[in-house]
């Protein structure tokens, strides 16, 4: 048995009085591709944001590569993690956002090479070289000196992926990365994700409404419903053969 790269242990998350996640337990193995599906408001984004440290769990533990994400050891006691600890653990995780969140004041190339240079202290030449290769891989080798505002939505999202990938995360998070795109641009972005998935070594968590894509890419699919994992299994078990009624009525909307 390989050690999981990410573990959620009884994670609860409330916003004010509203409990959004009600005890999530989850193991993700290195290189495993996990798709999260579920109705709007079920807590999919929240799971991803907890892992990216954009939100803090109300209770429970998240373990990343053997290290507790939100807690650290201080004189033999577990206390709330400080920013230094968070930075150490967070380095293994990358994220692609629904709305890209590219830096508008930087060129495409600068968007990609800033973090390797300043966060990973890579020398400028290597970082530039690797960024260019990554941008070529996502099909944007001819846009290096353009600004984000000069690109289409699909191109922006591919830059965002390159920007996350040059940091070589062990886990990559995708939160509905195609749902802000015009329909005709969705394909090019999914294609890039498929390519990344095929290369293998990185674990991926994908929140998606594209069921065919999930069937194609995911090793495991989780159906999240009102803050609990209501169903999980291989993509085909969950999407094609589940008896869960709420899951079936959820899926029906995508088959229509």
């Amino acid at each position, binding site marked *: 048995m390989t050690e999981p790269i990410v573990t959620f242990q009884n994670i609860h998350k409330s916003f004010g009085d509203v409990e959004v996640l009600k005890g999530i337990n989850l193991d993700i193995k290195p290189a495993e591709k996990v798709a999260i599906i579920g109705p709007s408001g079920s807590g999919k984004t929240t799971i991803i944001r907890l892992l*990216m440290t954009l939100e803090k769990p109300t209770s429970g533990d998240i373990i990343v590569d053997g290290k507790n994400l939100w807690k650290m050891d201080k004189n033999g006691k577990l206390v709330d993690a400080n920013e230094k600890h968070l930075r150490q653990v967070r380095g293994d995780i990358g994220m692609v*956002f629904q*709305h*890209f*969140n*590219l830096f508008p004041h930087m060129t495409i190339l600068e968007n990609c090479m800033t973090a390797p240079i300043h*966060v990973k202290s890579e020398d400028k030449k290597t970082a530039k070289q690797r960024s260019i290769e990554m941008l070529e891989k996502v099909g944007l080798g001819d846009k290096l000196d353009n600004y984000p505002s000069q690109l289409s939505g699909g191109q922006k999202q591919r830059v965002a992926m390159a920007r*996350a990938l040059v940091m070589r995360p062990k886990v990559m998070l995708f939160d509905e990365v195609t749902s*802000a795109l015009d329909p005709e641009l969705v394909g090019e972005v999914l294609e890039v994700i498929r390519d990344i998935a095929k290369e293998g070594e990185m674990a991926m968590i994908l929140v998606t409404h594209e069921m065919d894509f999930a069937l194609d890419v995911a090793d495991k699919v989780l159906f999240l419903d009102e803050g609990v994992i209501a169903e999980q299994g291989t993509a085909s078990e969950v999407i094609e053969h589940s008896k869960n009624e709420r899951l079936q009525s959820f899926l029906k909307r995508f088959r229509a």
Partner: protein
Amino acid sequence: MDNWSWEIFWDAFPVVLEGLGITVGLTFACYLFALIFGFVWTFLRRIPFKPLNWIVTWVMEFIRSTPPLVQLFFIYFAWPMVPVVGMTLSPFASAVLGLGLHFSTYIGEVYRSGIEGVEKGQWEASRALNFSTSQKWLKVILPQAIPPTIPMLGNYLIIMFKEVPLASTIGVVGILHMANSYGAQYWAYLEPLTIVAILFLVLSYPSAILISKLEKRMNRRFNKNEALNSSKGATT
């Protein structure tokens, strides 16, 4: 225009002009003070400790809603009489402190609007890429927060230039003070005060034009980003 005398005008001109260095110098000194102290306000308000935020907001509100003239008088005349912390400052230093502090509250608001104008997603992306706090501010937030504030900051420079004559009331020898004492000495106010008005016009009008040009350029920049946002919005 029986009372107008070109002779007096040209006689008074160099006298009034002598005060120009002090007026301009005081403007920039006040402005620098306000720019720095505005940062202090903004910083204090960002510390995540509610009682401190309330106090700071309240103090800013208090400073802003008292007339600058009263603040000047307080610092120059009343402060020396305050026990323990009281001290006597020169007219120039009192003016820098009084006007600088007053305007720092407005400048602090400008900084705040600049920072709040940066989209939430930019902060989140900085975190996702694991930037340190200083990298986040220097590489991502400030480069986006500062440009839109430049026209507003420029406007405050001009407004401040026009408020600086208040300092003549506590004896700062700027152009207004020079004009007044010339007037008192020769019983001729019309010409020296006209000179004051002309000097203000000559200096602030071109600056205002320059700033509105700058503003147009910044707007164009901003609209470029607007186009980016609305194309995002249209597809959601």
